[in-house]
């Protein structure tokens, strides 16, 4: 059975109506890259939006012509016969505003200056993203999503949809997410940002004009992030204290396998990701806090939501721990909203949300089947 959406191509939507950000900044025009899979039904009731996490983009599933290896980041979840079944749903993935995969972001050319936005690109929030996604939905003729789905930072966007546009989303699937970051979590982000901000090649965000990339900072930021996405056990299982050359060299070169792995991941990431986008994404994470203007009362924040919720967490995820998901569940219970909560036993830490797991996929499949029945 073919379970891939197959060859797909990305599309570009242009928006000429200015978008005002939460910060007050205004973007006069912008573009969003997106992909779609499956078919929008006649009633336009079967659309699903996939929101990406920190380093994600619009290429959610399938691959591009002539580039079979460039498989979408959630291809195990999205496709014909998969939990997010493209035979039943019309699935939309996009690259968020501020991203570096084709949507307008810091590395794009500002038409007013003819130069990359760089440091002048406004700091963006989850609310701003959701507003821009709603405009994309308008353009695609989607008045209401059957579901908005996301993991981690993507889960925050999915939740925000229910708060910003309660009438436009019937189900929210918030996976490995949190109602706001803890101090520890913000601290990790700050170290990552500091690595970038203090790289001499960063040039206050305008490195494009100098023909350089703050590779060292970006690489360190990714290495740190990567450590926090894995569990202690998963790292021990995968690398242990294994040495690369089988013996101690009494030097500062790469000796342990984990060092080799992290540096490889850091290099790979620094080669394609934009440093300013990394800064923006981590800021959006730090700022997300729907209870902030409500005396920190999450119960009041979720009073606006009308959608049904599926909240999923993973036992070894210490960056977005099960306890944080339970706070979301608690606020939904307080407001007597429909909510189910699954705590998946998984070894893989925060990264679990991207991995195939029998229980995780069973929960997703069953929940989405129910949504599909309601669409019919």
């Amino acid at each position: 059975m073919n379970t891939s959406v197959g060859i797909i191509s990305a599309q570009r939507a242009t928006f000429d109506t200015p978008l005002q950000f939460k910060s007050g900044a205004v973007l006069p025009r912008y573009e969003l890259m997106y992909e779609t899979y499956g078919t929008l039904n006649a009633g336009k009731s079967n659309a699903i939006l996939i929101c990406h996490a920190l380093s994600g983009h619009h290429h959610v599933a399938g691959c591009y012509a002539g580039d079979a290896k460039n498989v979408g980041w959630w291809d195990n979840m999205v496709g014909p016969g998969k939990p997010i079944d493209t035979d039943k749903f019309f699935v939309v993935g996009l690259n968020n505003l501020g991203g570096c995969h084709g949507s307008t972001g810091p590395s794009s050319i500002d038409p007013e200056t003819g130069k990359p936005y760089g440091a002048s690109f406004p700091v963006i929030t989850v609310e701003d993203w959701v507003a821009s996604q709603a405009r994309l939905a308008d353009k695609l003729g989607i008045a209401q999503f059957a579901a908005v789905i996301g993991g981690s930072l993507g889960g925050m966007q999915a939740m925000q949809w229910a708060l910003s546009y309660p009438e436009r989303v019937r189900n929210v699937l918030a996976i490995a997410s949190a109602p706001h970051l803890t101090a520890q979590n913000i601290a990790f982000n700050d170290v990552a940002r500091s690595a970038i901000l203090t790289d001499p090649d960063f040039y206050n965000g305008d490195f494009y004009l100098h023909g350089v990339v703050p590779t060292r900072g970006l690489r360190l930021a990714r290495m740190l992030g990567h450590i926090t996405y894995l569990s202690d056990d998963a790292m021990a299982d995968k690398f242990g204290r294994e040495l690369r050359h089988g013996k101690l060299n009494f030097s500062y070169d790469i000796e342990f396998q984990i060092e080799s792995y992290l540096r490889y991941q850091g290099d790979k990431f620094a080669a394609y990701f934009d440093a300013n986008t990394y800064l923006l994404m981590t800021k959006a994470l730090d700022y997300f806090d729907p209870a902030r203007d409500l005396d920190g009362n999450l119960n009041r924040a979720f009073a606006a939501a009308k959608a049904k919720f599926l909240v999923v967490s993973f036992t070894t995820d210490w960056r977005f721990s099960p306890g944080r998901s339970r706070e979301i569940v608690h606020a939904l219970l307080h407001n007597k909203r429909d909510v189910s909560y699954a705590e998946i036993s998984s070894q893989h830490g925060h990264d679990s949300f991207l991995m195939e797991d029998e229980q995780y996929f069973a929960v997703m499949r069953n929940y989405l089947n129910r949504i599909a029945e309601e669409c019919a």
Partner: protein
Amino acid sequence: MMNTSIIQSRPDFAAIAAWIPQGSSVLDLGCGDGSLLRYLRETREVRGYGVEISDQNIAACIANNVNVIQNDLDSGLADFEDASFDYVILSQTLQATRHTEALMKEIVRVGREGIVSFPNFGHWKNRLQVLLGNMPVSSELPYQWYDTPNVHLCTLDDFEILCAHLGIRILGRHVMSEGHDIQVMPNLRGSTAVYRFRRDA
């Protein structure tokens, strides 16, 4: 249809359902695959949530379109606020809980009323098996002593003593054996009991 088969397979469900008025809010602790909640929703427009620990049951509840929260009952009901449900149900699970006394307190905190069903260890067949020298095995207690999840078995009398001790007032009792109601000598003749109760004001 599914509705009637559920009730036939679990006689305590019929007794529980009979006590739940149309449109109530219900929390079902140890809700299994969500059959009871689904039945209550389809027949009585009940709004509710289940609590389950088993992965398989979580997936089954979701397939049954029942709200379910994955949690260990022995860690309490901290996710749920005081008097936030009309009824808190614990069906055929009491005997498998570790912190049974604490859970009973939680039930009357979270629910305006509690409904609990459990196998009566005082049923004559159980007493006979013990008298003959073995731990009881029956359709209500299908486990061997070495593989049973049941750590807190009790008789009707025992349960009523616990309620009195906790300041819980019993509002109703339904005792059954093999699908029949038992009125006379229930602690000896009943194999399953269902109680409705609330905290004494």
